[in-house]
């Protein structure tokens, strides 16, 4: 379960390829894949092992002009899906 204080990073076993602004993500096992739109690709780029999920949501809200509440709701669900599929892994949880 992804939490706001999680610091997430891309699983090093994941491989990616950019095509027409979309990001093709080859999942670590089973020959499966997902295709991310530019916002999804940006979330993946921001999940660099230094930012909490809340930090990621704030950046996306600023960049896309949506309310922080809307961005947070969408990104928590999206991050959860990426964690379940093994694309993102939790590096640590901020406790401060």
């Amino acid at each position, binding site marked *: 379960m992804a939490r706001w204080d999680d610091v997430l990073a891309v699983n090093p076993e994941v*491989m990616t390829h950019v095509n027409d602004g*979309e990001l*093709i993500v*080859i999942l670590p096992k089973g020959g499966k*894949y997902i295709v991310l739109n530019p916002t999804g690709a940006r979330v993946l780029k921001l999940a660099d092992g230094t930012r909490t999920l809340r930090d990621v949501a704030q950046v996306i809200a600023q960049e896309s002009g949506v309310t922080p509440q809307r961005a947070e709701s969408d990104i928590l669900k999206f991050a959860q899906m990426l964690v379940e599929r093994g694309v993102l892994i939790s590096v640590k949880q901020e406790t401060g």
Partner: protein
Amino acid sequence: MPRSIFSLRLAESTLAISGPETWLQPLRRTWSPWVVSPRINSWQATIHADDSLSRPAAPLFSATIQSHGGLCHLTLPGFRATIDASRHAAQLHAHPAAQPADIGYFLRVTLALQTFTQSGILFHAAGIVHRGQGYGCFGNSGSGKTTAAQLSRPDPVLNDDLILLWPGADGWQMYATPFGKRRGKLNSAPLRALLRLIQDTEVSLETLPGSRALAELIANTPVISGDRKWLPQAFARWEAILKHVPIYGLHFRKDPTFWEVIDGTLG
């Protein structure tokens, strides 16, 4: 243990194979349409019986394939396999209780790497030849490759599971491989279209969006899709193919009417 040597040729790739006769003779018989006399500039696959290994508990097909930087390892108790693309060489040590099918799987992985480095691409698809044109019908396990091949009688089937795509002077060609069921004796056909199989109650062709199409094709490119070294080239190769060959999602039901829709669209 007496040893056997023969060469296998798929499109313009030749693999020289040597190993214990008990394992290679059955393969040589089954694969006779692809067996050729030894050639220079071929890759070498060497197989050894090794009783210092533990007895296999599962077929090599279930091995984990780890491929990094062109060096591929198959890991499973009873086997030790390495395929080194830079040396054009593959080595398999197998416990004497291993079966010819295990050796066949090792050679299949070797050929996936070999043909890719020589400008081809091994593709997890049924290759059906309809009106002289090749159709690569692909999808995950259970998507209906074998069913589509069976429903296409009497059209020739180059292979119902794995075909080789190879660039020719007149465009991409689809070649038969020994790694599945074949119908007829045809060895190749011009590649007319790639069809992602989707079992349905109605028959239709749908356009596949670019990224999804590429991802589906990569997901059905065995061995290569797991190595960062090859992945950018694999995407580039599929992009090159898609410049000349259309790709569709084919919704089909269990009757041959899908060919009417394909003929109506692709002629």
